[in-house]
């Protein structure tokens, strides 16, 4: 198993209910959608509480491990668009349309996690995980007026990425749907 990288660690060791939940809520507001929060807690009640909390708030509890008397909870922040699907980026292209344009070497941003990218991506696609998109914007400035194709697994994260890019002044951004889950074209892999 490849370890999922942690974007933020919250230390709730020694704190009792309701503090682990209260702090978790605060910490999750400080990270980006798709990023992973690690919560360290010694309160055994946190095991059930974090689970219920995640269930309620829509964030994904990836899992909990225990080391000695410390519980480690891993939570992936949900994209607000996962809960509000009505706001969609209006410009989409199908996998087939992109496939036909592939030999012209279009600009493709793959916004999945590095691990997903490593296991297979469209040749020439640049890896920009959704959670790091905003901080990578500077490197992408030269693309603001170019045609940019954004791809993920199902079209969901790429939709969010398209909306972010459009808000930041990118004028010709297209969401590739459904994305890698239905991709039949060539694949490039990164293997160790």
């Amino acid at each position, binding site marked *: 198993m490849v370890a999922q990288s942690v974007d933020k660690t919250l230390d709730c060791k*020694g*704190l*009792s*209910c*309701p*503090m682990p*939940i*209260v702090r*978790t*809520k605060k910490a999750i507001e400080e990270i980006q959608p798709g990023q992973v929060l690690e919560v360290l807690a010694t309160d055994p009640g946190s095991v059930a*509480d974090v689970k*219920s*909390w995640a269930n*309620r*708030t829509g964030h994904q509890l990836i899992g909990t491990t225990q080391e000695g008397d410390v519980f480690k909870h891993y939570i992936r922040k949900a994209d607000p668009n996962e809960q509000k699907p009505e706001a969609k980026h209006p410009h989409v292209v199908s996998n087939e349309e992109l496939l036909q344009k592939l030999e012209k070497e279009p600009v493709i941003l793959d916004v999945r996690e590095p691990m997903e990218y490593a296991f297979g991506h469209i040749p020439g696609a640049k890896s920009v995980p959704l959670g790091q998109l905003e901080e990578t914007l500077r490197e992408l400035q030269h693309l603001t007026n170019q045609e940019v194709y954004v791809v993920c697994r199902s079209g969901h994260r790429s939709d969010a990425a398209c909306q972010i890019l459009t808000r930041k002044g990118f004028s010709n951004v297209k969401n590739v749907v459904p994305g890698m889950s239905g991709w039949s074209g060539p694949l490039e892999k990164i293997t160790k």
Partner: protein
Amino acid sequence: MTKRVAIIASNGGLETAYKVLNIATAAAATDAEVAIFFTFDALSIIHKDAANLLTMGAGKEHYVEGFKKANVPSISELLDIAKESGVKLIACQMTMDVVGLTKEHFIDGIEVGGAATFLDFAYDADVTVTF
């Protein structure tokens, strides 16, 4: 869909204060809208002098040591968290009139209202709890 939690606190004492504020802050952390209506003895929970007014009832002294051991946050800490996370704290006007308290006796950030003020919020509540 945001859940709404309406809490009525009518008893005093440190124990009640913890029950009320634990539920309130946990609910707020879970993205719920929360309002607490403080009436009768529970007004001591939001009193500026809460530290001295809130005591453990006779025979429950063992809790005090337990609280310290379990590193439970203080009431004023929990009140700060509650306010910060948008919990509405409503003091009962009628009780205040009866016992001669004014808004100045209470911590900052509270509202004063009557039963209708609370009911206005509670009518649309998904959960109602009484302490």
